[in-house]
């Protein structure tokens, strides 16, 4: 028998428990704790299953028609989302009599290690395969594989070139200088060879580096563009589950980290490994006893560097956070300086900043001291190899075991051993940082939009009837906003949506714009299901004005034409005139080419809103949506905008929400929503006569306006 089990972790007395609330396809709800059934009942007996979120915990309770509410189970916040899913399933069964189970339930616990998984990350951060992530990142290199391979081969040749001089020195000393049989000409030949090897190596390094950097910058560019495209093409759910800061960090910082890794580190990894390996092999073949001495400090130094780094990283991270706190305080205070001064709180703010700054100074000083203590011994340890070569090598030269040239070669090769080592010891940390960024970028790229486009969209003309058919929707699965809303809007009709905040007015229009899809039920336009219409086609044919419409940092012309790609000058002017924006635009110094600054901050609220209206109507949409389009304006400005709106809405299907009910009194029909859905429908006069919810809202507003009027008088 099919069933859906919600796992809860708290008993009724809030002690930990392993419990399950199970809904099975026979319609029964059962609670099982530690293997024993606690209760069972038929889901049809309840009115609704609901989630109540507390602080750090929540509960599922049953609401009955004629009996008090009953707690079914309690859980810590980790269970909140699944609790909502459980209630949705039970309520759907209650409503339709049919059990429906989700195909796949999001895994919350890692199957491998059993650790709880972070909702925003698909992989278990402890078990994810670092190499598969790197492999995927490398797939971005594919289009540039040829360039990268050639540049790495050239780079490798240049490494070999850098390793030739010590060998030349050995031969020169042993065969020509040590025994005093060399000639001036021979010295010139050796010096020339040395210079040539340097020149070739440096030349190759510069050439290969340029080619490599060009390729990796293109990879970085591709990756950033791909993530940005994903953000743009995703549905609004992405913005609900991720903050703007998080998305910006992924698109900018994480791709930057990957780019830096590829550019700065990826290039040198092969070179460093090659240098270390070739130098070690040459030294071992020259004299293995002395080579072992060179390598003696390697494991000790590597281990110490790794351990010290771990300590330092934690301490510097703390310093970074303290510094971030100082910046936040400073940013806050400077931004809100008017408030600080007007409340006379300067001293309090100085004290707050001083404390944060003092804390930062203290941790910075501690870290510098620690670094000062740790660094010299580390450097000393690295130089132990040099000391050993000098001491033992010198002794061997005197002994006649090795030649002077061999000893010089060993001394010259020390950098080829220790430099890569110093560098390579950092690689795990760099790799860890980069894979973190890679996982975040790939997560974003893999995030599937909940608004999907069907293979063959039914792109009917966006006009005619808009029909909400038994629509259920909630931004959070445990908090449904719309419950079975049905509403038919006729072609050319103006509908005013009215109701208290939180009843779902904006949600209704968000669904009409297909920013979200209903959880249940459907919306049709011109008899076509909105799910079968491509979002692009829909948005191209709809005009929207929000309460705080965002204007871009550009000219009036650019902002209005944003509504229609390739709009003509006449269309822009016509739209501005329709929105009563033309006059103030032409009065500006540069007319339509006047720059309005970021967010249109240089404009008044009324001017900004007129521009938004012009932007919405430039494409002459058949459906117009006005979401509190005039709510932030004063009555006088609203009246002037209202005039343009009356002209614009004529003959178009319009759905409008307005806080001021007087704004909507000319609507063909007013739809009053309450928490249970559509409560009243009718014209302004009909609803007033009815003396229901709308009447109450109008009276309350009149009373408050009267009070305001009296107070002003």
């Amino acid at each position, binding site marked *: 028998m099919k069933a859906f089990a919600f796992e809860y972790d*708290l008993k*009724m*007395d*809030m*002690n*930990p428990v392993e419990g399950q609330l199970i809904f099975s396809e026979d319609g029964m709800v059962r609670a099982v704790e530690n293997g024993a059934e606690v209760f069972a009942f038929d889901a049809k007996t309840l009115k609704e299953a609901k989630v109540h979120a*507390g*602080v*750090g*915990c929540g*509960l599922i*309770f*049953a609401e009955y028609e004629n*009996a*008090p*509410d*009953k*707690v079914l189970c*309690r859980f*810590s*916040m*980790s269970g*909140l989302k699944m609790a909502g899913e459980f209630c949705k399933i039970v309520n759907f069964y209650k409503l339709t009599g049919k059990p429906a189970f989700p195909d796949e339930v999001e895994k919350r616990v890692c199957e491998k290690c059993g*650790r*709880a998984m*972070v*909702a*925003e*990350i698909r992989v278990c*951060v*402890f078990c*994810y395969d670092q190499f598969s992530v790197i492999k995927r990142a490398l797939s971005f290199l594919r289009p540039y594989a040829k360039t990268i391979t050639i540049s790495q081969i050239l780079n490798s040749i240049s490494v070999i070139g850098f390793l030739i001089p010590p060998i030349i020195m050995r031969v020169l000393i042993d065969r020509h200088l040590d025994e005093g049989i060399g000639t001036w000409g021979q010295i010139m030949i050796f010096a020339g060879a040395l210079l040539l090897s340097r020149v070739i190596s440096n030349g190759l390094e510069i050439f290969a580096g340029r080619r490599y950097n060009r390729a990796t910058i293109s990879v970085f560019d591709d990756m950033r563009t791909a993530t940005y495209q994903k953000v743009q093409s995703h549905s609004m759910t992405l913005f609900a589950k991720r903050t703007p800061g998080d998305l910006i960090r992924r698109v900018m910082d994480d791709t930057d980290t990957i780019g830096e890794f590829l550019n700065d580190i990826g290039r040198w990894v092969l070179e460093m490994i090659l240098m270390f390996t070739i130098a070690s092999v040459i030294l071992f073949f020259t004299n293995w006893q002395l080579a072992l001495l060179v390598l003696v400090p390697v494991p000790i130094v590597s281990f110490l560097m790794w351990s010290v780094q771990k300590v330092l990283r*934690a*301490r510097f*991270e*703390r310093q970074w*956070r*303290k510094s*971030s*706190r100082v910046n936040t305080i400073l940013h806050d205070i400077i931004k809100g300086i008017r408030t600080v001064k007007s409340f006379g709180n300067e001293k309090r703010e100085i004290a707050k900043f001083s404390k944060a700054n003092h*804390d930062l100074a203290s941790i910075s000083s501690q870290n510098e001291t620690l670094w000062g203590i740790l660094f010299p011994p580390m450097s000393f340890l690295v130089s132990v190899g040099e000391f050993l070569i000098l001491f033992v090598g010198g002794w061997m030269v005197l002994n006649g075991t090795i030649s002077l040239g061999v000893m010089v070669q060993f001394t010259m090769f020390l950098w080829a051993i220790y430099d890569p080592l110093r560098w390579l010891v950092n690689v795990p940390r760099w790799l860890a940082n980069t*894979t*973190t960024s890679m*996982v*975040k970028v790939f997560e974003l790229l893999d995030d599937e939009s909940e608004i999907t486009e069907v293979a063959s969209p039914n792109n009917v003309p966006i006009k005619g009837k808009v029909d909400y058919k038994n629509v259920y929707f909630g931004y959070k699965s445990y908090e449904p906003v719309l419950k079975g809303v049905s509403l038919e809007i006729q072609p050319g009709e103006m509908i005013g949506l009215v109701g208290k905040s939180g009843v779902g007015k904006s949600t209704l229009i968000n669904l009409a714009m297909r920013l979200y899809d209903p959880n249940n039920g459907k919306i049709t336009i011109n008899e076509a299901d909105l799910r079968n219409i491509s979002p692009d086609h829909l948005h191209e044919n709809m005009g929207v004005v929000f309460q705080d419409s965002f204007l871009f940092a550009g000219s009036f012309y650019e902002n209005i034409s944003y509504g229609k790609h390739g709009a003509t000058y006449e269309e822009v002017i016509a739209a501005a005139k329709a929105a009563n924006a033309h006059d103030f635009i032409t009065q500006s110094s540069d007319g339509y080419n006047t720059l309005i600054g970021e967010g249109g901050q240089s404009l008044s609220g009324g001017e900004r809103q007129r521009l938004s209206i012009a932007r919405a109507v430039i494409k002459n949409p058949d459906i117009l949506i006005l979401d509190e389009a005039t709510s932030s304006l004063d009555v006088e400005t609203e009246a002037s905008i209202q005039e343009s709106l009356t002209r614009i809405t004529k003959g178009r299907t319009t759905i409008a929400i307005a806080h001021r009910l007087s704004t909507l009194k000319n609507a063909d029909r007013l739809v009053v929503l309450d928490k249970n859905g559509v409560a009243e429908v009718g014209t302004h006069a009909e609803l007033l006569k009815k003396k229901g919810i709308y009447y109450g809202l109008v009276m309350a507003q009149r009373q408050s306006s009267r009070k305001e009027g009296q107070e002003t008088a």
Partner: protein
Amino acid sequence: MESIKDQMDLGIMDIKQAEFYATDGGFVGLKYKGEDYKHVVLRRIMPSKQPFNYISVADIENKEIAILKAVDDLPEGQKNVVLTELDNRYYSPEILDVISVQDKLGYVYMEMRLKNKKGIEYKKNCAIKDVSRNIRMTSDNSIIVFDVDGNRYIGSDLKKLSRQSMRKLDAYLF
């Protein structure tokens, strides 16, 4: 000039007219000024500073009925009902030990030994995002930790934590 609080009706509950009771369904009900509210919601107005004073009592539609000024003012039986409900609504186990802290993919994974208000001890793994915001010092000696799911854990006296625990936490306290 009289204080603002004298000008406003705070809606402080007249406890002589109030009777809190536990319902069979596991909720709290309230009989107040002739009304019987079968399911009320209790919210701490100042949870960290005044956890047992200033409790907002609202009906199921979230409309505030009144503010209970002090839980201690209630008769013993009613007081227990209110305290139990507050314990059930505010779930924040106490941190006894920090067993391990690991930074992974920008999240801090913490394994802790916790104790709930009934004194039951247990271990828990949790992930914390943006530690600068979600590990907060509430005073010089106490912290509150929020995990990615919205669970919260309290360290009410950091001096009571072992030296090993403090060493693990140290990098995140500021």
